[in-house]
């Protein structure tokens, strides 16, 4: 069973006898001349009294040197002065990740420790148990960390959660790298899921993700430099078995610019073309019950929640039975001032047409606070207190500015249809929804509505065709305290999405501020650079102590990855993105003239 000596990794040392040796953790003395660092994967073979071997695979989580044979700290001066004989003791601690066969006897002091390579490495990382895996990054020595796809796509587990400080932790980059690996490593081809697996990415900061489909002109140089600096035998993309290419079949959705009249242009700055604006029609807003998503804190007060639920119901009924983008109401004759201010149009037969979000609010205000000499329509008010009703209207007015360009009744039906966000559009694998320019309320609204739609769609169609949802700043959408409609959707996804084929790749600065059930449902947990105080919180107890203290010094481009198959987290690095993340990183396309480029710049 044991491979011959030349196929095994180099000998690193012997298991120590001066510290307890246990089946889950032990120390070994490093042979002079060998170099052992954190994250090295090692293997030990011990023999039971009957001669049968037991193999231990593990990861080094602590290394230290010290003088042995001397007592006092200041003895180092005597040792260096050549007066005091002392030996340097170089020892490393191993956290066992696997025992094979599963006989949890301790190794014996004196057992030989070797570096895990080849087949040993596969066993150490439980790769042999993974029927389908994709690369999750490179280990320190350039070997590939496999991630079990069955723990990602919902078969055995699902969801990925990434924590880390903004900026240095590069959470989004790693999430995109994982998507790239899933899409392009061939893990999907085994069951020909390639064309049916999709991703929905919310772009919450800057316009970083709007160039996913463009090659990055720095990547070749950066990767060559890294390869040289780390002394890797090949480029990192090559080692990982991934193409150094940008994403394919991407659509970009962005909200329209406000106040542009009938012309609907996406509200983006850096990318002149290829971004589709998206809007919701006013009728859709009512029929598909989007009102609750306008109130991220709607459940804060019982009464307000009641009013929201009631109005949601009334609007749904009001809008039912037609498919024009606008609503028509018969019982409202706004006075002329409102008319002028809000451009209300009248239809035949005294009907009033509601075309904008502002008009809808005015109508609701009329129904709740003005009709019947200030009593309101009794069926709409439902005996709620005036104060609550005013609070409801006030909040609506508060988000009016943000939602006005998004929720429209003034477009012809065919255009409204064209601008409906369709994240499951044929021929599109990755959808990027840009919400970074929206206000906080509008962001929640868009995320909530899109995820709810997706969830309901998947409830109907089942778990075929996995959809990955990438969402940063989970602490905003699913905070630990409080309730909100969008948190409910995220919780649904976290708890049931696995069986519906919706996989959340969520990220946040601080997992301690995110709803516990969302974090704990993630099968794969990733940690980038963490604030050290944050790293000590219970959410990170899955990291052994040495990893937690190291989380404070992780460099951009390195992550600690924990997956169910491997009991200990593993430090990986992942390559520089092959797609552009800024306008000036976009590689010049072959054959493109300077004139075209200039036109692109000018948006012509």
């Amino acid at each position, binding site marked *: 069973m044991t491979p011959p000596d030349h196929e095994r990794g180099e000998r690193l040392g012997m298991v120590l006898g001066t510290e307890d040796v246990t089946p889950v953790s032990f120390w070994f003395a490093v042979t002079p001349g060998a170099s052992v660092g954190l994250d090295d994967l090692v293997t030990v073979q011990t023999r039971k009294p009957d001669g049968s071997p037991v193999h231990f695979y593990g990861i080094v989580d602590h290394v230290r040197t010290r003088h042995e044979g001397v007592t006092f700290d200041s003895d180092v001066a005597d040792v260096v002065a*050549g007066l*005091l*004989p002392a030996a340097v003791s170089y020892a490393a601690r191993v956290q066992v990740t696997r025992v094979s066969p599963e006989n949890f006897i301790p190794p014996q002091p004196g*057992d030989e420790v070797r570096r895990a390579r080849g087949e040993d490495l596969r066993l150490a990382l439980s790769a042999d148990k993974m029927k389908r895996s994709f690369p999750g990054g490179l280990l320190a020595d350039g070997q590939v960390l496999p991630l079990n796809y069955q723990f990602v796509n919902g078969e055995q587990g699902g969801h990925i959660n990434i924590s880390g400080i903004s900026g240095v932790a590069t959470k989004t980059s790693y999430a995109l790298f994982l998507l790239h690996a899933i899409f392009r490593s061939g893990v999907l081809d085994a069951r020909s899921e390639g064309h049916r697996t999709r991703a929905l990415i919310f772009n919450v900061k800057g316009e970083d993700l709007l160039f996913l489909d463009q090659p990055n002109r720095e990547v070749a140089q950066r990767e060559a430099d890294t390869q040289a600096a780390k002394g890797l035998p090949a480029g990192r993309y090559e080692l990982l078995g991934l193409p150094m290419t940008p994403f394919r079949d991407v659509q970009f959705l962005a909200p329209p610019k406000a106040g542009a009249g009938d012309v609907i242009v996406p509200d983006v700055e850096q990318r002149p073309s290829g971004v589709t604006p998206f809007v919701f029609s006013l009728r859709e807003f009512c029929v598909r019950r989007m009102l609750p998503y306008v109130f991220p804190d709607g459940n804060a007060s019982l009464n307000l929640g009641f009013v929201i639920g009631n109005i949601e119901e009334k609007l749904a009924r009001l809008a039912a039975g037609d498919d024009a983008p606008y609503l028509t109401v018969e019982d409202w004759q706004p006075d002329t001032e409102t008319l002028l201010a809000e451009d209300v149009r009248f239809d035949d037969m005294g009907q009033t047409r509601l075309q904008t979000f502002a008009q809808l609010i005015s109508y609701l205000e009329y129904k709740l606070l003005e009709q019947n000499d200030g009593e309101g329509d009794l069926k709409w008010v439902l005996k709620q207190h005036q104060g609550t009703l005013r609070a409801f209207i006030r909040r609506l007015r508060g988000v009016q500015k943000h939602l006005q360009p998004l929720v429209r009744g003034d477009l012809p039906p065919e255009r409204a249809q064209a601008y409906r966000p369709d994240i499951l559009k044929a021929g599109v694998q990755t959808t990027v929804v840009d919400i970074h320019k929206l206000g906080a309320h509008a962001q929640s609204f868009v995320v909530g509505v899109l995820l709810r739609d997706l969830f309901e769609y998947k409830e109907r169609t089942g778990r075929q065709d996995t959809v990955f949802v990438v969402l940063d700043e989970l602490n905003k959408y699913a905070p630990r305290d409080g309730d909100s409609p969008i948190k409910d959707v995220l919780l649904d996804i976290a708890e049931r999405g696995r069986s519906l084929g919706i996989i959340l790749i969520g990220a946040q600065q601080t997992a301690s501020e995110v709803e516990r059930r969302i974090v704990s449902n993630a099968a794969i947990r990733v940690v980038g650079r963490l604030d050290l105080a944050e790293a000590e919180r219970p959410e990170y107890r899955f990291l052994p102590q040495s990893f937690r203290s190291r989380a404070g010094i992780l460099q951009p481009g390195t992550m600690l990855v924990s997956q169910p198959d491997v009991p200990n987290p593993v430090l990986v690095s992942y390559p520089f993105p092959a797609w552009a993340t800024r306008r000036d990183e976009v590689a010049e396309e072959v054959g493109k003239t300077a004139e075209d480029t200039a036109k692109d710049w000018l948006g012509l």
Partner: protein
Amino acid sequence: MRIRLDPWPVDMEGGQLGLQRFDGELIDIETPRWAAVPPRPIPARLQTVYVVDGKRRMESRVFIEDEGGAAGLGGFGAYVVGAVELCPHGSRPATLRDVRAGRVLAHAPGLRVDPCRLSPRDPHTGQLQYEPVVADSAEPLAPLHKLQQLMLHAEQELSHGLASAVPFSEEDEREALTALTLQDGTLRSQNLGGAVVGCVKTMQTQYLPPDRAGLLAELQPGERTPILHLRSEHGRVTRFTWYVRLCEAAFYQHPLSGVMRLEMYAPEDPDFLPPIVRTVANLSGTLLRRLASQAHKDPRAPQNLIPTAALEQAMTRAMGSADLVTRRLRAHIARELGAAS
């Protein structure tokens, strides 16, 4: 009345100061002028200093009956000698040399004893082998004395093997002093001809007459007394000896604390001081001040030298844990008796 402390811990037998009377003979071999001699720098060609020590331990006393029906006392014992090799100029790290334990079964004469091999209890712990040696008599303490003899012999071999030779004739006086051995304690009786210095930590005997003893209190750190030729009362032992101060005595300690006596082998005729002895004496202050230990690290400071303390530790370790060895002896005997019955 003035009371001052002996610096050594009270559980050390005798303390640093004993001050028994000396009835032998002292001759001024270096100079008749009784005054402090300042230290000299260590000559560059002295490249290696060895600090040698030995240790022994009786692990079990036994009663032996052999096949022929004879019976007698014996003992399982271990001894170890070793050296620390260091460069007096500090140009390389100090290393332990030849720290190896020997194990013997010392027994009364007239018995037929086989070697005892204690097999390991675990694949990774070594086996212990006790070679039989015959003690000088059937006395109960004879096995212990035999063990001590073996240790001293091994120590002597090691000391002299490592050091440069000391010529006792005037012809080859320029014999280079390249390697010097510091031996812990007084020199053993047999001289094997090496440049070996005995470092006597305690002053059990006051060799100096009262009119000369005052100089010891006045020595400054590194300074030494002139070299004397010493002959014991019965004339059996002849040595060159001198005193050197390693450090200042604290005000609460007796004035001789911090002083150490050194000795080298001397011919019986007190007419010639080998130059190498003078060289050693001259450098001894400089060398020993570097090697001297400090009170907070070693209770027998400064006389118990830094390398000596490390060597003692290494030697104790080389002999192994006494408890475990005793247990393995017991297990071995149990197995032997079990097999016999």
